[in-house]
């Protein structure tokens, strides 16, 4: 959904200047094309404006003077002008597209690259939806401007101004009689822009309402039918539907009023020219040719003002969109590779040393936490929701940097390590398998883009998953639809685990699933995870007691502190927090 459009989002003069300067800087490499385009624009406007003046010459010096040669000259000149309109019009469209589309392509790549570089902390602060809107709705509104309007806007402006100047120069008397329409048009167009903007904002909301209501009616159709609520839902939809109709009709009524004013103005202007102009001709104040030229120039007043009023919104929206995009580009990249960063050693101890952390200006989430995980050790992080165990895991893979203290691997502070080696040694398996578009194989290859098919097969084999993947219609080359809608949660998880296996890390951080998977794949997932963990250092955010019980070490996190560390049996025997947690878990239902 487009987010910028409303009048509340118009830029101040200063902001406009900033956006303009920055855009000019970005366009600087395309200077030559832009200059060429400017020439074409001017030539196109000039050719358009030449037409009526030539007609005037033809009528006055040819027709009225009975001079066939002059008439022929005029017709020929007119033809040349027409050719000019075509040629320069064509070149303008092409040049503007070259510059504009190229600019947009660079902008898309630049903004996206920046988004990919931004730290996860940024993604915590911003909703994915609104970030997606930057890259889609905002840039698309620029696209609209480039492909439809920009060249037209400039040509129209030139034609409008040129027509006014020429009309006054030809006959100030008649011009006075005709140009009264200009303030009327400008006023009407301003009014229209304001009103239609309001109406369309409202309409957009209504359309959204109808679509939401429709979508709900469809996704909820089973519940609706089960509870016999079809009639209630039909009424509900009919109401939002009717609201959209009314709002839409209102928006079109605004346009109808505007068109009425335009038609009235146009009608009166023609009447004035023919009538008052005719009278002026009779008085020999103006020539017949001038009269004819005025009829034609009138066209050059109306079309530009109407089109420009439509484009004005688009241009304003584009300015606002650019500003938002520039703001996004100005977001600092905080998790970055230091100059002179070194590769992490292939194997080493993970040391969390006196780490404290908070998200932005939020409350302290981790408070002076220290833990050391030796190669090959399996550590379970347990604790109530919100205790800080997930945050601790995120610091271990440098999704965030600690505020105080340090996290190091094999003696190298993660902040001094190359990002490449970090992602190679340490890999996260999230709770839910996230799939991208493409095939299952593409999804696995995310972990190691250059991997050979054999390497992928090895990763699959290492997890004993060949039969499971072979069961898909096209095996590993099965297409994944809509983020894996055609795969069950368990199957998505299998892809995610295979991904980790292909990356072949020394350390795996595993976020255990809280909710149950489909019973069919549950056991296979568990087996695959077990294979993945073999021979690797493992840190698991445990939600199940059985997982904690199997770990070498259990680390209990509560209120941001590490309250207990030890083996399951010892901790249960100790009768501390872990023992209490254990009791509440087992206290539920038994067979």
């Amino acid at each position, binding site marked *: 959904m487009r987010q910028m459009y409303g009048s509340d989002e118009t830029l101040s003069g200063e902001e406009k200047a900033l956006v303009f300067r920055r855009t000019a800087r970005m366009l600087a490499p395309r200077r030559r094309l832009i200059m060429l385009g400017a020439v074409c624009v001017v030539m196109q406007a000039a050719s358009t404006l030449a037409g009526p003046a030539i007609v005037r010459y033809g009528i006055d010096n040819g027709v009225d003077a009975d001079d066939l040669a002059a008439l022929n000259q005029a017709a020929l000149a007119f033809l040349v002008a027409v050719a000019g309109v075509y040629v320069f019009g064509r070149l303008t469209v092409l040049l503007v597209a070259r510059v504009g589309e190229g600019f947009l392509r660079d902008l898309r790549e630049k903004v996206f690259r920046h988004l990919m570089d931004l730290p996860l902390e940024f993604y915590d602060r911003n909703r994915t939806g609104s970030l997606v809107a930057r890259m889609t709705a905002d840039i698309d509104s620029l696209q609209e401007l480039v492909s439809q309007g920009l060249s037209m806007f400039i040509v129209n402006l030139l034609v409008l101004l040129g027509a006014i100047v020429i009309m006054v120069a030809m006959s100030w008397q008649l011009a006075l009689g005709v140009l009264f329409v200009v303030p009327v048009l400008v006023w009407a167009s301003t009014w229209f822009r304001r009103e239609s903007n309001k109406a369309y904002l409202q309409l957009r909301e209504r359309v959204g309402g109808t679509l939401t209501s429709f979508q709900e009616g469809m996704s909820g159709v089973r519940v609706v039918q089960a509870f016999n609520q079809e009639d209630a839902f039909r009424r509900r939809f009919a109401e939002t539907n009717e609201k959209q109709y009314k709002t839409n009709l209102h928006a079109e009524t605004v346009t*109808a009023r505007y068109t009425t004013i335009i038609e009235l103005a146009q009608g009166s202007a023609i009447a004035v020219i023919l009538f008052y102009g005719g009278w002026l001709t009779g008085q020999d104040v103006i020539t017949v040719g001038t009269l004819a030229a005025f009829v034609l120039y009138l066209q050059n007043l109306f079309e530009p003002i109407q089109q420009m009023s439509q484009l004005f919104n688009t241009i304003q929206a584009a300015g606002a969109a650019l500003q938002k995009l520039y703001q996004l580009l100005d977001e600092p990249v905080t998790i970055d590779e230091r100059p002179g960063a070194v590769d992490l050693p292939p194997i080493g101890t993970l040391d969390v040393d006196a780490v404290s952390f908070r998200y932005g200006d939020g409350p302290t989430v981790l408070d002076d936490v220290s833990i050391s995980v030796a190669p090959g050790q399996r550590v379970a992080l347990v604790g109530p929701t919100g205790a800080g165990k997930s945050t601790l895991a995120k610091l271990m893979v440098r999704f965030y940097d600690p505020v105080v203290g340090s996290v190091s691997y094999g003696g190298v502070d993660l902040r001094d390590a190359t990002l490449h080696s970090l992602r190679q040694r340490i890999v996260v398996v999230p709770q839910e398998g996230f799939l991208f578009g493409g095939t299952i194989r593409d999804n696995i290859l995310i972990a190691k883009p250059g991997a050979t098919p054999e390497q992928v097969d090895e990763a699959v084999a290492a997890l004993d998953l060949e039969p499971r993947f072979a069961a898909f219609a096209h095996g590993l080359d099965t297409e994944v639809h809509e983020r894996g809608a055609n795969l069950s949660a368990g199957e998505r998880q299998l892809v995610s685990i295979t991904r980790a296996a292909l990356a072949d890390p020394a350390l795996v951080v595993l976020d255990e699933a809280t909710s*149950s998977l489909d019973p069919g794949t549950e056991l296979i997932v568990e087996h695959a995870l077990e294979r993945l963990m073999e021979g690797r250092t493992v840190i698991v955010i445990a939600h199940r007691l059985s997982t904690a019980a199997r770990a070498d070490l259990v680390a209990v996190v509560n209120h941001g502190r590490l309250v207990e560390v030890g083996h399951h049996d010892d901790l249960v025997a100790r009768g501390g927090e872990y023992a209490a947690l254990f009791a509440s878990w087992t206290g539920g239902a038994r067979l």
Partner: protein
Amino acid sequence: MSTPEPHIRRGGWRLMREVSTREPRWIVLGVGCALGWTLAKIAIPLFALQAIDEGIDPYDREALLGWSIAIVAATIVVGVFTYFRRKSAFAISLRAEAELRRRLFDHLQRLHFAYHDRAQIGELMARVSTDAKQVQMLVVFIPIAGANFVMIVGVSVVLFALNAKLALVAMASLPVLLVIATKFSSILHPVAMGLQERLAGVSHVVEESLSGVRVVKGFGAEEVQNGRLATAADGVYERGMALARLRSIFNPLLEVLPMLSLVAVLYVGGREVIAGRLSVAELIAFNTYILMLIFPLRMTSFMVAQVSRAAASAQRVYEILATAPEIVERKDAQPLPEGPGEVRFEDVTFGYGAGPPILREFSLTIRPGESVALVGATGTGKSTVARLVPRFYDVDAGRVTLDGVDVRDLRLSDLRDAVGLVFEDTFLFTDTVRANIGFAEADATAEDVERAALLAGAHDFIDELGDGYDSMLGEHGYSLSGGQRQRVAIARAILADPQVLILDDATSSVDPTKEHEIRDALGEVMRDRTTIIIAHRPATIALADRVVLIDEGHVAAEGTHRELLATSAAYRTVLAQAEAHEAAS
């Protein structure tokens, strides 16, 4: 796109006619105003010509005044009629669009489960938004189409009357304009759609990269995604340029063709004037008329191009509307007898669509007030059994009865009122918590709703939401956890107070440590109520009076939970699976 069958094609046109004639008064007004508008427009230059000939050249005050008044009147007519013409055009076409949306929604709400199992919501959304809009964009031409025709004919008549030779020359390029504009419109459309597709491609890459940013960063796959985006952006660039190339050919051409007419008028018309066969005033009138024709011609070409798009859209909508609901009430359907609530499956065989049968000669009787747990591995048909009771699907063979009456002989609304069902994936609507719970009972009091929520163990967390029971759920409101959603759904079913209650994995997302809180409530609800409960957790299964193990579409074993544990190996295996993933509870 393949050519649709004739009856679909005819149906599409019929549908379009039906929905576009919903506002007959606006049609009359619109067509009338459009005609008036056209005639007034054609009249203005003629009046002016008369004014010059009769009033100015030999100066005649009376005639001049008369013609001035005529011109002013015509101008006012043009203005006022423009307003009504436009307004009625949209009143008619927006009504058609709204009517299509309404019919689609109504019909889809009535269509059977099996249809919705196959249908993709995205597709249906496209019908209701894009296709309805395409039809609107054609219907909007209703008032102006005839007027345009009159304009073209009328202007031609006037011009030919003034000077046939000049008219011929001046109008020669205009049919070309019509043809080129039509062609442009139909060539442009697919390319423009192509651009839209590429733009969608970009947004797809962006959306999944940002949603999956943790995975991307976790594997250091930023460059992979950058590469994909670059490819997508290149695609947009290439399509954008293709579109620009088309525009660069056609747009200037459309602008230049009427100018060629003006050149011809100057060249040929000038000669006619010199030869004394035409007055200068008439020459100027020619110019005015040529300009007047540009708009109707372009619009006509757009309309021609729109016809095929709108027809295709209408056909797609019609295809849905022509789908007959499979689950319909019999004409002689009987009201539900006031029975105790006995559910009986008699030799039921059923499969989804053309798929293999899920249930094979399945027989089971659930006594009034009894609670039965259905247990079995995934895909054995537990949920299917549940779905046949409220007649979401009809059996292929055998019958399902409620208090001795075949469910197919009952009034559908009676049946569904009597059977309450809580699904595994609960659906909550964008509305208040209260409205979601009271969804089936419009006249439920606040106390009723709260009592139901209390029973379902939902009261406490609802109380903690900002506005309690008036808190909005959904897109712009609170989002509840899976377990919370399920508890709201259970409250909904409790409030409906059905004779037969079906809980289809209705507590699966409730945190195991919290489930015991609602287990008591469930026990309360199930007491003296015929209940079918589908569950994986032993503690939940144990709530039922009787457990039925289903395997391969029929009853494999039955008894109490303890009996089956003791006697059935298959039962123990199924439970062991559940136990494996609920090891902590």
